[in-house]
């Protein structure tokens, strides 16, 4: 697969994966929490942009770390890890499809993070708080992040491991919905509009994530068999 096609694939698939109801919930909570604080509009915007940038860089760093680890690992181990990731992606896809039919809490935020999440979204005083919140955001969607980002990273490694800017592109694509929502909030669209939209669409997001996860798993199998050579 040429780099051009892979970039298109990464953009489309990454965008589908980025619409995770959990991530959107946390982002909207952050925006809501900031409004309750005694901050100027400019400072509120600055905090949100810093949060989006940190979140994007964190995803890029995780992905780059996985690709580098795969590059350094022996061939046999790489194949085994790729197979495990593919099988996990397929099973994870089924969990999302289960959530689509019967909206349950399978694979949702670990309880220990709920408390910290609530605490942080209501009190942002420093850059450290923003970094912690970005880390908690990824932690809150930890199962999704681990499996989906690992699948993307394995595909990057199998299809085009020498191109190191793929992880950065993935980080940018993952933060795109947050960027768009924040732009719309800055234009004056009310926060409740997005909360309502997220609540109405969460089952569709689950279906999309499920199908994408299954598709990523199958693509890893195809890459291992040399289909994209």
């Amino acid at each position, binding site marked *: *697969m040429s780099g051009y096609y892979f970039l298109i694939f990464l953009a489309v698939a990454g965008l589908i994966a980025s619409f995770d109801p959990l991530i959107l919930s946390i982002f909207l909570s952050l925006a809501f929490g900031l409004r309750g604080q005694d901050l100027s509009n400019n400072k509120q915007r600055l905090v949100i942009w810093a949060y989006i940038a940190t979140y994007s860089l964190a995803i890029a760093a995780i992905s780059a770390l996985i690709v580098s680890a795969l590059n350094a690992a022996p*061939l*046999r181990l*790489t*194949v085994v890890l*790729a*197979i495990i990731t*593919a*099988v996990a992606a*397929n099973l994870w*896809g*089924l969990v999302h*499809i*289960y959530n689509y*039919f*019967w909206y349950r809490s399978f694979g949702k935020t670990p309880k220990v993070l709920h408390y910290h999440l609530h605490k942080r979204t209501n009190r942002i005083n420093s850059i450290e708080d923003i970094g912690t919140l970005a880390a908690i955001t990824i932690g809150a969607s930890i199962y999704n992040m681990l499996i989906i980002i690992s699948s993307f990273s394995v595909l990057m*490694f*199998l*299809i*085009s*491991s020498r191109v190191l800017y793929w992880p950065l592109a993935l980080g940018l694509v993952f933060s795109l919905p947050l960027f768009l929502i924040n732009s719309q909030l800055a234009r004056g669209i009310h926060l409740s509009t997005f909360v309502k939209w997220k609540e109405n669409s969460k089952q569709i997001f689950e*279906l999309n994530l499920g*199908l994408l996860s*299954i*598709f990523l*798993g*199958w*693509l890893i*199998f*195809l*890459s*291992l*068999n*040399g*289909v*994209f*050579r």
Partner: protein
Amino acid sequence: MGISLLINYSGETAKNLSWQTMLAGAVVLAALVVVDKVIKNKNYHMAIFLAVAGLVLIVTAILLAIIIVNMSNILDSGVVL
């Protein structure tokens, strides 16, 4: 027949079998999603979910079997493009 073809010819046959399997799986999966959207009846959710799960597990098992049979070829030629 697919497995014996793989054992005899490996590389190229494995490639063809795997993308054909995935394509067939993707088409059936898309059809199941369309059926769910058309029916819109909660009574059929369990049946559709079981069909999706069965399909995903079968396709995954076939792709995994192709990889296992083709493993020596994968290790000889490397996995990276």
